[in-house]
Structures are given as C-alpha cells and as structure tokens.
C-alpha cells in the first residue's frame, strides 16, 4: 500500500470559487469525450421527452434527478422503470421534487445496467505532496468516507508526478493492489488511463466514479460521474461556458457572480464588504467574534473604485435580511482618498437602506477619513479599528 499524507479538507466556497461542479449527466458526457464507457442516456426537463428517451434506449431504464447534492436515492430521486407507464410516472414524480432544498429541473434517463461488482475510482490533487493522488477501491457504491474510516486498507492510493504522468505499468500495479476481480483488470486499467487523461487534459480539480461497475459480461463501466472543473482553465476550454448556468448559486450569489464579485451568501444580518479574500474572511470572523451574524462574504478585490463599490452595495441591498453594512478596507497600493471617493460616489448611485459603518486603514488613511468626515451621519459612520467598526455594525443590526 502506498502511504499518503493528509489532503486538504473540502474548502469553504469562497476559496473554492474557481471550481465548476458538473451535474451527473454533464460529468458523463465529459467522460464520454475521453472514451470512458457510460450508459446510453439523455437529459431532459420534460416528462414526455423522458418517455421518448426511455423508449429509445430500451427498458429497463433508470430515471435520475440531476441536482448538486447527495442522497438522491433516499429522497426518491432515483427510480427504476420497467416500461413506458413507469417511466412516465417516475419522470413526473422526480421533476419538481425538492431534494435538500434543490428543486429538480433536469432528469437523466439511462439504460439500466446489470451489476456484478461495484468499485470506486478518483483522481485529485494532493496539496501536501504537490502531486496527483489516485484512489481505487474494490468497495464502491457506498460512501467512500465510510470505507476510509472503517477499512482504510481497502483503498489503494497512488501518487502521480504531474511532470511525469501516469504510465500504463504503474496503473496496472495500482489496479492489482486494489484487489479488484481479476476479470476487471483490463477494463479497469483502460478506464483509469482515460480517467487520468480526462483529469489532466480536461483541467479537472476532481474526477470521481462511484460506482465503477463490473458487469456480469465482463465489461467495466462508469455508472456515476462526479466532476469538478477548474474555471481558471476556461481559456483552453471555451465549451466550459455551458456549465456556468447550472452552478448551484442562490439569487444573491448569481447577481454577484454576474458583476464579477467574490460573494458567498450567509445567514446573518450584517452585510460585509472588504478588499481581499483574507481580509474579507477576517471581517466575517470579527463580526462573529463580537456577537453578530454576517449576511455574506464579499471581496471587492484589489482596486477600489466607485463602480466596484456600487456593484457591491447593489448586491448587498438586494438581501432583505441585511440590517447594517460593514465596509472594511485596507489600502495597500490603493490610496485612502480613492477608496473614500469611491464609496461616496457609489452611495450617490445606489440608494442604501441599511446604515453603513466604514473602517478605512492603510495607505493615506488619514486623507481618506478626512474626505468621509464631513459626510458622516446616522446612515454613514466611521470607526478607527476593525473591532470597533464590527461592534458598531453589530449594534446597528440588532
């Protein structure tokens, strides 16, 4: 068994904003482009079209809800249909279903597969080792975390040096180490080589097949697909634009995304605007520390101009739960007077209901504060430090 260092936790969404998560059907279509065998099927949002797809691929079929959350089966989002009547019934029931707050708008209808064995396979980046990590297990079809906890030796791990790539000999050794059914060896090596290619050539952060199945007829086949793509590589993949529309975002996040702002919606009442991801994260922390609840994380980025502040204020304004706004800016290259003027100009353009508390520090902070000073009132306040500003914003939100 190859030993492996600790990997990263799933990162909070604001540091993961470059990831594009695919729905199962998109993942399967992505896999198919790299020659990975997937079941014949199609996606649709219409019951009669679903029936037509089922008739085309041939019964029995599986009707599967396409949502960005797990536990679809338990929620009634995955059903087997033996005939047209059942296909129509299941498609009708699943479309519109609420699965953990995700309303099903799309279903995937595919030909059902006979399963002899279920495996697990994935590639991702091991940030500690700074190499790729492949994981393969004969115990697939269940939560892989459970396997990792209860029977870690059942997962065969392999490190691949990104500068060297994965050789077929290396891949074969890995498959042998995973103790799959010997009948699956050839098929598994073939799929894993293609999965590696999809991972690297496709600029994916994660490719995962669970379950990877061995059919009674001896073929190996991807029965599910989890794919997360790196949107930083969009310049190499103009077709990835299509996935933008199906990203899981709430209304506030969609509005912010359209303006190019880094925004994550939270549950609280204090709107947060800061420059830089670290400072924005820190601002959310400080609001919590003084007993408040942040309504969001919003990073306006490096430069600080009126357009950017206006966009940020618009996004925050659209959130009805916001009772006060904390603008936390540290001027580095951007000077304090530019920041102050940007905020004032934005306030003229956007009519803000909630009171604003500003903390402005860093380069030319005194000049910036001097510009804000005469404009202060009970809707626009200023505090000298992050902590004091947070306290004031939290008081105002109560």
């Amino acid at each position, binding site marked *: 068994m190859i030993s492996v260092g600790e990997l990263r936790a799933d990162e909070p969404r604001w*540091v993961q904003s470059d990831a594009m998560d695919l729905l199962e059907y998109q993942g399967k279509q992505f896999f198919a482009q790299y020659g990975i065998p997937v079941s014949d099927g199609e996606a649709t949002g219409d019951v009669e079209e679903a029936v037509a797809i089922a008739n085309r691929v041939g019964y029995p079929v599986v009707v599967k809800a396409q949502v960005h959350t797990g536990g679809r089966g338990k929620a009634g989002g995955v059903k087997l249909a033996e005939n047209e009547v059942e296909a129509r019934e299941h498609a009708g029931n699943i479309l519109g279903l609420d699965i953990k707050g995700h309303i099903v708008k799309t279903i995937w209808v595919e030909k059902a597969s006979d399963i002899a064995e279920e495996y697990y396979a994935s590639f991702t980046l091991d940030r500690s080792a700074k190499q790729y990590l492949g994981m393969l297990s004969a115990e697939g079809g269940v939560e892989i975390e459970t396997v990792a906890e209860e029977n870690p030796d059942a997962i065969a791990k392999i490190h691949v040096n990104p500068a060297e790539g994965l050789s077929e000999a290396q891949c074969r050794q890995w498959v042998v180490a995973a103790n799959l059914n010997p009948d699956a060896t050839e098929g598994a090596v073939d799929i894993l080589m293609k999965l590696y290619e999809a991972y690297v050539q496709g*600029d994916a952060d994660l490719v995962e097949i669970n379950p990877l199945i061995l059919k009674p007829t001896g073929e190996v086949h991807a029965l599910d697909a989890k794919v997360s793509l790196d949107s930083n590589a969009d310049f190499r993949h103009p077709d990835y634009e299509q996935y933008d529309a199906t990203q899981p975002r709430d209304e506030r996040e969609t509005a912010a995304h359209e303006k190019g702002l880094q925004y994550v919606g939270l549950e609280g009442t204090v709107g947060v605007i800061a420059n830089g991801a670290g400072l924005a994260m820190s601002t959310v922390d400080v609001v919590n520390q003084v007993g408040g609840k942040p309504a969001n994380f919003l990073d306006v980025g490096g430069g600080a101009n009126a357009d950017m502040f206006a966009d940020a204020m618009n996004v925050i304004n659209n959130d009805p739960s916001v009772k006060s706004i904390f603008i936390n800016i540290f001027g580095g*290259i951007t000077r304090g007077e530019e920041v102050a003027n940007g905020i004032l100009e934005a306030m003229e353009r956007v009519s803000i209901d909630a009171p604003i508390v500003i903390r402005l520090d860093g380069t030319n902070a005194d000049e910036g504060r001097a510009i804000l000073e005469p404009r202060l009132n009970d809707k626009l306040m200023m505090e000298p430090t992050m902590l004091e500003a947070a306290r004031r914003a939290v008081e105002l939100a109560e």
Partner: protein
Amino acid sequence: MSIFLDENTKVIYQGLTGSTGRYYGLLNRDYGTQVVAGTHPKKAGTDVDGIPIYATVAEAAAATGATATCIFVPAPGVKGAVLEAAEAGMELVVVITEGVPAHDEAYFYNVVKRDHLNTRILGPNCPGLISPGKANVGITAGHIAKAGGPVGIVSRSGTLTYQALYELKQKDIGVTTCVGIGGDPVPGTSFIDCLEAFESDPETKAVMMIGEIGGSAEEEAAEFIKNHMSKPVSSYIAGVTAPPGKKMGHAGAIVSGGKGTAQAKMEALEAAGVRVGHNPTEAGELMAAIVRSL
C-alpha cells in the same frame, strides 16, 4: 539581513511592457529594487522608462547578470514564463499573476523541482516579497513596512499581509523580509521554506505567520516549528467562522481527517508553542509583546 531578496538582487520583469507589469515594475524600482530588464518576445530593443527589454529571460540575464524574475504575464502564459525563467537559471521566480490553472502549477512546480534545483518559485497568485528598506518585488505597498527587523513575516493572504506589516509599523516594529506565499493549490514556496530561512537569518529574531482555512500547510508548519524553530512565532488564521464548504465528491474530504479548519490549525500551532491571535490586531499585539521580551 533579509531572506531571498536584498538591495543587490537584480530582477527581470516578465510582462514589464503590459500595464500592470509596468505599473508595479516602476513602483518597485522607485522603492529601490534593481529592476534591470524586462522581456517581451517581440519588443526586444525597446525600453520601459529606461529599463531595457530583451526577447528572452536568458538574453536579459546574460546582459544584466540578473538572478531573479518577477512574472506579470497573463495566466495562460505563466507556465511557459516560469519554465523559461528556470531554464535561464533564475534563482528566484516570483509569480504575481492570479488565475493560473492548477494543472499548470502542478506541472511547472514538479518540473522545476526535478530539473532546476537552484530555482525557487514564489506564488502564483501572491503579492510577492519585500525586504523593507532594501527591495520590493511585487505588489506590496512599500511604505506600509518599517525597515530593519527583528520580525520576519510569512503569509498566505494578500491584504492580511499588508495588514500585518501595518500593524507592526504602527507599533514601530521593523521587518527583515515579508513573504506572501499566495493561496493557490500548488504554491512554489511553502510556510516551511520561509520559516527555515528565517530561522537561519541572524537578523530575524521572531516570525509572524498569517494563515487561512483549507489545506494542511499550517499544520505542517506547526510540526516544523515544534521540531526545528528556536525563534518565537506569532500567528493569525483567517476563516475561524467559515461555514462548512460545499462538498464536491469525496476524494478531498476522505483524507482531510478533520484538518483544514481554522480551529484545527490554531490548535496545532498553539501546541507547537506559537502565540495565536484571534484577529490581525491581536496577532500584532502578541508580536509586539514578543519583541519587547527579546
């Protein structure tokens, strides 16, 4: 002394002819950095405010004796730019550009590690590094830092790096070198690389380390501090109250084993004897106390 960069370091700017590269390249020169050349494959023979442009890093290095480079080229060109710099023998390659694909980073990091043992990559997606009073390479505002030591700073976050420099300056505490390692998936230089360098730098007497949630770099740093650092360290970790991340597949979570949260990082650091503040100001105050006791 300082680490990685001083007033004698000659630096080439790849992307000096672009608007961002020009802006920061000239600011860095004003600060005192030896900005000796720029590169552009089609603009050799021209200059940017008196700084000569060469076609390649190798030519620029041969003509100027430069040993470092700072990269401002757009993300699609970063892989090529880093490999070119390494092949030209650059000892320090600072990548400011953000939005570099993770697979490109993983590739050039491992190629450089295998083939160019004398090359250190810093970044991508980092603010660069500054040895206050000596040289500044990147996008840090030079005047928010006080020169002279005794504190070294290493940080994963841009604005919090500036905040840390500023907190110390307000307390009249100087900095030997401040290194922003960046928050990308495959950073060329790690916390540990910087801690190791600060530990052997005689003028650095204490180190301030700014981390954030995700990954296990802070936990690894804590292990290093426990076993190899004699100098005191203060720290701040951003993202204490971050809600749990959305999970995409399980390949990441499975090996995380509870690591990656701010709480886990703070506990690991405290167990290693690091004084951990709950906000940047508190971390600054802790460092001020350390400096008083030196």
